[in-house]
């Protein structure tokens, strides 16, 4: 890990970044998310874990409205997510997302991937967007790949480009949906290091992951979900050493005890 990664994370503020109240979501008649209440403060690093199908992805995808909720309220950075498209666009330009399968644009170079949204959404001049992109590509330590196409990079490199691409929009909140679970073990570390560095700089992060080492290193809160509900949330230390519910214990014994 780098020096930046070893520094202590900055303190969490009182300012609310995401406020979710009594949120419910259904897929047809299937109740995926039940009465979710969640307040994320600026600067928080939250890790969300839980068994497969528990609704983790659905929850964080509701925050930038890749999924629509049917009941309750989601307010992101003061903007409520409703069917009003202007609000949706506003929230999306403030919230960055990193996907399990990277979802880079294969027909564009790494640099173009990073400058696309700043140029078209933020209307940043091309030159400036390219400078920003190079800045973040350096930060994720692959500036030399800028002219290549995503298909020519390794999985770990692609995921770091995806992180840089999201950062180029200068988001206030970053969402990660299992960013390392499609990667080979030797590439996981390079991506986690990048994320840790980001966390140490005070980025508000919501991260679905089963990398418990990451949770212990930087998270200030771990949320455990099961069957569409938030079952338990606590500091990483309490969460791992002193889980409260039976379901959490079972889950932890499965992922930690192999």
């Amino acid at each position, binding site marked *: 890990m780098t020096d930046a990664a070893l520094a202590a994370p900055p303190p969490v503020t009182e300012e609310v970044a995401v406020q979710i109240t009594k949120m419910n979501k259904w897929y047809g008649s299937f109740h995926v998310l039940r009465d979710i209440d969640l307040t994320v403060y600026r600067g928080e690093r939250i890790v969300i874990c839980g068994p497969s199908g528990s609704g983790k992805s659905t929850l964080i995808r509701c925050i*930038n409205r*890749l999924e629509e909720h049917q009941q309750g309220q989601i307010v992101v950075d003061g903007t409520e997510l409703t069917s009003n498209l202007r609000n949706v*666009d506003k929230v*999306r*330009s403030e*919230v*960055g*997302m990193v*996907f399990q*399968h*990277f*979802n*880079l*644009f*294969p*027909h564009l170079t790494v640099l173009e991937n990073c400058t*696309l*949204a700043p140029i*078209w*959404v933020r209307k940043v001049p091309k030159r400036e967007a390219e400078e920003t992109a190079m800045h973040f590509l350096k930060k994720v330590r692959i500036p030399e790949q800028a002219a290549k*196409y*995503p*298909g*020519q990079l390794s999985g770990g490199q692609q995921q770091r480009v995806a992180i840089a*691409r*999201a950062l180029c*929009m200068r988001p206030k909140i970053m969402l990660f949906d299992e960013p390392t679970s499609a990667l080979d073990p030797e590439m996981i570390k390079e991506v986690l290091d990048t994320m840790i560095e980001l966390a140490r700089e005070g980025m508000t992060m919501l991260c679905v992951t089963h990398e418990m080492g990451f949770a212990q290193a930087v998270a200030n809160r771990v949320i455990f979900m099961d069957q569409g509900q938030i079952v338990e949330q606590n500091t990483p230390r309490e969460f791992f050493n002193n889980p409260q519910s039976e379901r959490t214990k079972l889950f932890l014994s499965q992922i930690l005890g192999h």
Partner: protein
Amino acid sequence: MSELHAQTVAQVRDTMLPPVPPPRRETGAIRWLRQNLFSGPLNIILTVLAIWLLWVALRDVVPWAWRGVWRASSLNECRAIRDQLYPEGTSAACWAVLTDRWRQLVFGFYPASQIWRPPLALVVFLLAVSPILFARLPRRLLWLTPAAPFLIFWLLWGGTIWGPVAAALGFALGVAAFLALSRARYPILALLAGILLPVLYWSFVAGPLARALAGVAPLALPAVASKDFGGFTLSIIIGLSGISLSLPLGVLLALGRRSDMLIISKASVFYIEVIRGVPLIVWLFVAQLILNYFLPRGTNFDLMLRVIIMVTLFAAAYIAEVIRGGLAALPRGQYEAGDALGLTYWQAMQLIVLPQALKISIPGIVNSFIGLFKDTTLVSIIAMFDPIRMASSIRATTAWGGIYWELYVFIGLTFWVFCFSMSRYSIWLERRLERGHR
């Protein structure tokens, strides 16, 4: 490392042998033949069979074409020349029909003094599309592209230049109104103004304006009537207009079919299924006979324009389905990444979805284009003189009655050259767009 080696390794080779060419039997043509044609008993049999079939097919055709007579003014003259040159019973092509009638085959009944105009129009067309077809060309060429349709129309049909200019001004007016109002954030008003203003302008202002301008500066080409278009000129005009208009329409239909808005998607499906389900010939009859009933009385809507519209509408339905396949092949993650970055629907389509979907669809799109181009010969049944009908009419003259193969070989080869070029272009484009996917 190397020091260590120097002490522990007894002998290290320090001069490298140059690579030696492989033995004779393993190189060049002989090797190629052995590997590809004679690598086993079955392959030997197949090779011999193929050579024999080629021989059978070509042994008569090649001498026939080679001996061909190029200068004569009728079939009888051709035969007289052949009988002079070759022994009794030898067959020889009579290419003279092409040298005698090439103008009709290529230009139809276009006035002889004006036949420079269609090739010039073709050059303008190629220049206008070249920056779209070849990304390396300077972007400045794109400025010609919006003006090209009007210039081409004027070159082909002639008349005063102010007609097309006045018509073009209508488009410019619409675009300007749309941009001004949408910048001021009145999207619906912008759309309305963008459509209504040009329509009003065309109905009331364009005609008088063109006439006034023509009075001031009479810049005109001799007018050519649509019925005088024929031969390959006709095929190429219908084919290229159909191709360039059906692609954007097909893209819109494909997007419409996948739209979340129920009315739009149902309307697109309805359009595609109706158009595709009926043979093109029927639609051409519709263009010829029925379309005029729906148009306001007195508008003498040119048959050729009607046919171009029909062919475009027909091809668009096919293109839409091909592109829909490309859209469906894109992983959902691409749409989601675009959404997550805050791109609007149209931005995501233009920047992310369509470039990839169109690239996947290139073979299918070019396939449809080739089909469309060859289908232009169907207009012969609604009394238009495409190359096939032109050939029939040449064969109906006393001079060339009875000639057969030469005309159709020429027409077939010409079509083949066009279609093959499109096919090669598409292969080249696919290679150029290759991005090392895994």
